[in-house]
């Protein structure tokens, strides 16, 4: 039972908006920027992307090789743990399914968990089941243009069904793992899984 806030009415959304908002979120038309440190900047000639198997096998792409992989476009709502949600964002990138099937040709085998690691040292952990089956991408285009660096460019992970800290900016590697291992925010008090519809913001949220 919550305390009623004397005199608070709040701003009601339309039924359509309310249905799209996970609990505790509000809609924003901006695209706020959040990150824990300076924005890393890397020339595309020095950029590459690695998918590493728990068995030690790796697949690696240069920028040119990466963007030549079969692309997909997705339109999705995104939800940040700091409470804002943004509807109908348009992204283009390579699905993790595609990366895994390409990597399989280099002997990389699936494992139940993965850790995304990034320029700047950021990490986040995910179950493999949450990045396969058309649920996750490594995106390098936003709204029809190259992804700006403050939003994670040249490329970021996109896992829109989880809070947006899981969609790691400046991602450079996906490392498959046999067991789960908490990433950056997951080690600093945030929830290990982060389902916005169950409002799993912080460690201990059910």
């Amino acid at each position, binding site marked *: 039972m919550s305390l009623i806030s004397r005199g*608070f009415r709040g701003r009601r959304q339309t039924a359509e908006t309310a249905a799209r908002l996970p609990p505790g979120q509000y809609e924003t038309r901006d695209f706020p920027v959040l*990150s824990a440190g300076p924005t890393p900047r890397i020339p595309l000639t020095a950029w590459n992307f690695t998918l590493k198997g728990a068995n030690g096998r790796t697949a690696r792409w240069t920028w040119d090789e990466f963007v030549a992989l079969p692309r997909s476009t997705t339109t999705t709502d995104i939800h940040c743990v700091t409470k804002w949600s943004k509807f109908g964002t348009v992204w283009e990138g390579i699905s993790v399914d595609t990366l895994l099937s390409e990597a399989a040709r280099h002997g990389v085998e699936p494992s139940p968990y993965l850790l995304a690691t990034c320029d700047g040292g950021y990490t986040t952990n995910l179950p493999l089941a949450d990045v396969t089956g058309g649920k996750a991408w490594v995106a390098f285009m936003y709204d029809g243009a190259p992804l700006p660096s403050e939003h994670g460019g040249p490329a970021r992970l996109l896992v829109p069904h989880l809070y947006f800290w899981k969609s790691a900016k400046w991602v450079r590697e996906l490392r498959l793992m046999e067991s789960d291992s908490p990433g*950056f925010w997951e080690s*600093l008090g945030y929830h290990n899984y982060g389902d916005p519809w169950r409002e799993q913001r912080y460690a201990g949220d059910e």
Partner: protein
Amino acid sequence: MNPVGAAPRISWRQATVIDVVPETPRTRTLVLDVLDWPGHRAGQHVDVRLTAPDGYQAERSYSIASAPEDPRLALTIERLEEGEVSTYLADELHTGDKLELRGPIGGYFVWDVPVGGPLFLVAGGSGIVPLMAMLRHREAALGTSDAASRRGLPARLLYSSRGWEEVIYREALARLAQNDTALEIRHTLTRSQPAGWTGFRRRIDRAMLEEVAWPSSERPRVFICGPTSLVESAAQAMVELGHEPALIKTERFGPTGGAV
């Protein structure tokens, strides 16, 4: 779902407003008595939840302004145009009212005395709030220390505001610096300056940071908080000045616009 397992839920707590302190035309501080507050670290924030009579709820995050040593929790609220929660907290709430919050939240943008210094703080607008908690924590820890031990934990603040009337904690900052030669505070006023103003009068840039900050060889702990444009450019400039990215911690707030 959580392999860490031991983490208890950060539960909602009832807070009572025991004082309301006007800071600037757009901001005020709510001083709260929080039932069973577990304590916090300087730089952390809380989630505030408001509930309307029909059950509708809205949540927002606010940085903690008070030192961990202070038994009362202080939140400084900036009234945002059309801010659903901030207008209520900045205009409606009175002494004696109750609200719900949970925290403390955030384990990265924090500074404790044992981390050491030099401590270099860069603030834009209401981005001063978590940095004020750090300065208050430093002051509380140093207590009656003499000048020599204060010099062992030096701090500098570079604070950008639009005008002199919009400087949050203006008097409190001046008091902190008054008897502490190891704390230096520099203001920049980007839109209007009082008569006779001799300080900076432009947005924070690389030259200003080079002038005010310690050199990278001193390895200052850097905390930057403000609107995105300020945080992006200040953090980038600090990296260009040779500071190690891992020593630069950033926190941003507000929409993508809102330059200070």
